[in-house]
C-alpha cells in the first residue's frame, strides 16, 4: 500500500537562495509526523508547497499514490490537505459555527441563512471531534487554545485527510498544549495524517510517530521517534559551518554598563536579571515566543506594567517611556521594521533625524542645512544605496531600509543599542555590513543586546549568550562554550546528557 502523502525530489528556488533541494517526505494515514529544523531550514517552504501556496520547481507530490500539483490553497483543500497557520484565520466577531462553514452556510429558498440548521451542523462536527466549544459563541470570546481547536475543526469539516500544523503551541500554556496534543492523538486514531512542525523537542517526543529533519533546505534524514533520543535529533539539526563571514570577536569587555534586576512581566512569576558590559555584544537566543522581545520592550520603557530595576554605570535610572530611554542613551531597533521601525512614506532624511529633531534645529526651527548634513553623513557611513537623501524609505531594498533604521539609532549616539532580529529578511551583503557595523560599534564602547532567532548569527556575533525559554533566562554561555547543540537544548528546555 502506498503512503497517504509522498513527496520526492522537491526543489524550490527563490532569487538568491535554494530554499529546498531534493527534499523527500512521506506520511501514512493515522500518523503524526514531525518536521524539524532550524529557522531557514525550509520547513515552512515545504509546507507551503504541500498546501498549494507555492509550486515546486521540481519533484513530485503523490496523494494516495496519484501525482498531484495543488496550485492554490483552495485546490489543496479540495484534495483534502488543510493547513493551520501560526496566525489564526478566524473572523473574531462571528460565531464559531459561521467560522467553521464560511462558504457552505445552509440557506433557505430566499437565500437567508438557516441559523438553527447551521448551529446543528456545527454542533455535530464539534461533537464528532470532541471539541467542547459552543457553536453559538463568538470567536473573540474564546481562549487562544479553543480558537485553535475551532480552526482545526474548520479544516477538518471539509473532509480533510492531511492536516498540517505550523507551530501550533507557540502561544499556548502547558495545560492548553496538553489538551491540543490529546486532541491530535484522537484525530490520528481516526485515520487523519498529521504533519506537525515545532521547535519544541519535548512535544515531538510526546506526540510524533516519526520525525523528518531538514537543514539548509536539504533532507537530513527520517527516524522513528521511539528508536532515537532528543540528542540524536539535535545532532541531525546542527552541523552547519559557521564560516568566516562574521567579524572577529571583541578582545576584552569593559566594566558593567547596564544592569537589569528582577525584571518581571505582568502575568508572570519569573524574575530575570542580567548585566551588559561595555563593548560587549550580548546575544539573546530562544524560540519565537520565549519572551526576548517582550524583555527588550520592557527595558526600553514600552511596557508600563513590567516591574524592573535598571542601573546604568552602577546608578539606578528611571525609564518610563521610550523618550526616557533615548535620553539615557538607549536605542531599540524593533523586530518588525515596517510596522514599528520606519516611517515608510517619509524620506531617509526624516527617518534618520526622527529621535533627535532638536539636534538638527536652531532655536525652534529645523535647520535644512543641519538636516542634510546629518542624513548625508549616515548615508555615507552606512553605505546606504540611494539616489538621494530625499528618497522615500519604502522605495529602498530591505537591506537599505534596515540600514536606514540603524542610522536612526546611531544618530542618537547610543551607549546601549538593543537590536531585535537585526538582519531578518535582508540580503547577504547588507547582512554582513550590519554585522561589521555592530561589531565596530561594540569596539567603540557601545553595549549591544542582540536578539536573533538565527542560531548562526547568535553564535557568530555574540561575546556572550543568554538563552530564554518561556519568559525566563535559562542558560548563559560564553562565546567559547556556546554550541548550536547546547543552545537548542536550553531553548527547547531539554536537559540532556
Amino acid at each position, binding site marked *: 500500500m502506498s503512503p497517504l502523502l509522498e513527496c520526492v525530489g522537491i526543489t524550490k528556488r527563490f532569487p538568491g537562495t535554494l530554499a529546498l533541494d531534493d527534499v523527500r517526505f512521506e506520511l501514512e494515514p493515522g500518523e503524526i509526523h514531525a518536521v524539524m529544523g532550524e529557522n531557514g531550514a525550509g520547513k515552512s517552504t515545504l509546507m507551503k508547497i504541500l498546501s498549494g501556496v507555492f509550486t515546486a520547481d521540481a519533484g513530485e507530490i503523490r496523494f494516495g499514490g496519484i501525482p498531484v500539483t495543488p496550485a492554490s490553497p483552495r485546490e489543496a483543500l479540495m484534495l483534502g490537505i488543510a493547513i493551520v497557520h501560526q496566525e489564526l484565520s478566524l473572523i473574531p466577531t462571528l460565531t464559531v459555527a459561521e467560522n467553521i462553514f464560511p462558504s457552505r452556510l445552509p440557506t433557505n429558498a430566499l437565500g437567508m441563512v438557516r441559523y438553527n440548521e447551521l448551529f446543528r451542523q456545527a454542533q455535530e462536527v464539534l461533537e464528532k471531534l470532541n471539541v467542547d466549544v459552543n457553536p453559538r459563541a463568538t470567536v473573540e470570546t474564546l481562549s487562544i487554545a479553543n480558537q485553535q481547536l475551532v480552526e482545526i475543526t474548520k479544516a477538518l469539516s471539509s473532509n480533510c485527510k492531511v492536516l498540517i500544523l505550523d507551530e501550533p503551541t507557540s502561544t499556548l500554556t502547558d495545560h492548553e498544549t496538553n489538551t491540543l496534543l490529546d486532541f491530535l492523538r484522537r484525530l490520528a486514531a481516526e485515520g487523519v495524517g498529521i504533519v506537525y512542525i515545532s521547535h519544541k523537542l519535548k512535544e515531538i517526543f510526546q506526540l510524533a510517530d516519526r520525525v523528518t529533519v531538514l537543514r539548509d533546505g536539504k533532507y537530513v534524514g527520517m527516524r522513528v521517534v521511539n528508536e532515537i533520543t532528543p540528542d540524536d535529533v539535535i545532532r541531525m539539526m546542527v552541523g552547519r559551518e559557521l564560516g568566516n563571514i562574521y567579524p572577529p570577536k571583541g578582545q576584552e569587555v569593559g566594566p558593567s554598563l547596564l544592569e537589569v534586576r528582577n525584571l518581571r512581566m505582568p502575568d508572570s512569576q519569573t524574575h530575570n536579571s542580567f548585566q551588559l558590559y561595555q563593548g560587549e555584544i550580548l546575544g539573546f537566543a530562544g524560540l519565537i515566543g520565549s519572551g526576548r522581545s517582550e524583555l527588550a520592550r520592557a527595558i526600553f520603557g514600552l511596557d508600563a506594567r513590567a516591574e524592573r530595576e535598571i542601573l546604568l554605570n552602577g546608578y539606578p535610572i528611571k525609564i518610563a517611556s521610550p523618550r526616557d530611554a533615548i535620553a539615557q542613551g538607549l536605542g531599540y531597533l524593533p523586530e518588525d521594521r515596517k510596522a514599528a521601525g520606519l516611517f515608510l512614506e517619509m524620506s531617509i532624511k526624516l527617518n534618520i533625524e526622527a529621535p533627535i529633531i532638536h539636534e538638527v534645529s536652531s532655536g*525652534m526651527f529645523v535647520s535644512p542645512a543641519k538636516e542634510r548634513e546629518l542624513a548625508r553623513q549616515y548615508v555615507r557611513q552606512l553605505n546606504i544605496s540611494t539616489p538621494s537623501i530625499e528618497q522615500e524609505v519604502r522605495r529602498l531594498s530591505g537591506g537599505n531600509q534596515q540600514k536606514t533604521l540603524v542610522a536612526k539609532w546611531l544618530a542618537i549616539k547610543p551607549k546601549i543599542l538593543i537590536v531585535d532580529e537585526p538582519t531578518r529578511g535582508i540580503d547577504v551583503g547588507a547582512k554582513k555590513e550590519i554585522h561589521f557595523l555592530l561589531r565596530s560599534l561594540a569596539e567603540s564602547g557601545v553595549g549591544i543586546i542582540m536578539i536573533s532567532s538565527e542560531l548562526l548569527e547568535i553564535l557568530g556575533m555574540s561575546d556572550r549568550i543568554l538563552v530564554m525559554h518561556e519568559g525566563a533566562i535559562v542558560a548563559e554561555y560564553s562565546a567559547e562554550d556556546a554550541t548550536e547543540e547546547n543552545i537548542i537544548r536550553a531553548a527547547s528546555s531539554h536537559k540532556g546528557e
Partner: protein
Amino acid sequence: METTTPISEIPLKSSLSSFFSFLVRLLRMREAALVILIIAIGLALQIITGRFFTTPNLNAISLGFATSAIIVIGMTMALVSGGFDLSVGSVFAMGGVVTAIALRADFPIPIAILCGAGAGVVAGLINGLLITKIQINPFITTLGMMGIARGVSLAVTEGTVIAGLPSQFYIFGQGRTLDIPNLILIALFMILVGDILMRRSALFRQIYYVGGNDEAARLSGINVDRVKIAVFTMSGLLAALAGVLSVSRFTVADPGAGVGEELRIIAACIIGGCTLRGGKGTVLGGLLGLIFVGFINNGMILLRVPVYWQQLSMGVVLLLAVGFDTVSQRWQMRPRGRKVG
C-alpha cells in the same frame, strides 16, 4: 567600515538633467501643480468674462474663504497626524455664539474673544482626550463633538441669531488696513505662521512622525498622545477663532453657521495634498485647494451657471485630484520593480 565596497555612488548630474529633475520634482509637488491650475483658471475666466482680475471680485472671493482658510490650518494638522476633525463646523458656530453672548453681557472685547476661543479649546481638548486616552476613533469622537457643539450653540441661543454687538467688535471682519480687508490680513498672517510652523518647527514636525507611523514615532521618543491632544486642541481653537471672525464680519452670531463646513475643509486639504492615512500635507496646500475650488465656484457664478452645480464641482475636483494622485503613484512605483527577497 573597511570591509564594505560602495554599491552605488550618488551620480553626478549635468546641469541640464538637474534642471529637468527639478522640473519633475516641482510638478510632483501638489502645491506647484495647484498654483499652475489656479493661474490657468484665473486667466481663462479673465479672458471669457473680462472682470475676473478686478479688486472687488478678488476681494469678494478672498473674503469668502478667509475664515475657512483659518480652519484649514487646524484640519491640516489633524489630517497630518492621521486623524480628522468633523466638529470644526459646529465649533465654528459655537465660538461665534459664545463670543456674542459675552459681548452682550458687556464683557470687554478681548475677554469676549477669549471666551469664544476657550470654548473651541475645550471642545478640541475633549476630542483629543477621548481619541488618545479612551481610544475612541477620530471619526466617532469628532462626530459626537459635532453634535454636542451644535447642540450647545442652538440651546443657549434657543435657535435664534444674536445681533446688536458693540460696533468696535466689527473692525476685525469689516475694517480695512491700507485698503485691504482686515479679515484677509488676519487669515493670511495665520496661514503664513501655520505653514512655517508645520514646515520648519521642530515641535510641529512631530505631527508628521505621528501620522507617518505612530508606533515608530513612539519608539523614536515622541509622546504620541500628547501630540494628538495638542493637534485636536489647536483644531478646535482655530475653528472657534474663525467663528468669532465670522461674527465680526456678518455682525450677527448664527448658531446654524458652518453646517457642512467640515467636509468642505477636508476636501480642500485633500485636494491640497493631505491624505487620510496621515503623515503628509501642508497648510499652503490646503489653502491652495480652497482657492482652487473657490475659483471654480466663482467662475461658475461669473458664467451664470446655476448655483446648484457648485456642489458638484467640489465633488468632481476632489475625486479627480485623489484619483490622479493614486494612479500617478502606482505608475511611478511600477518601473522601479519590487525588491527581491
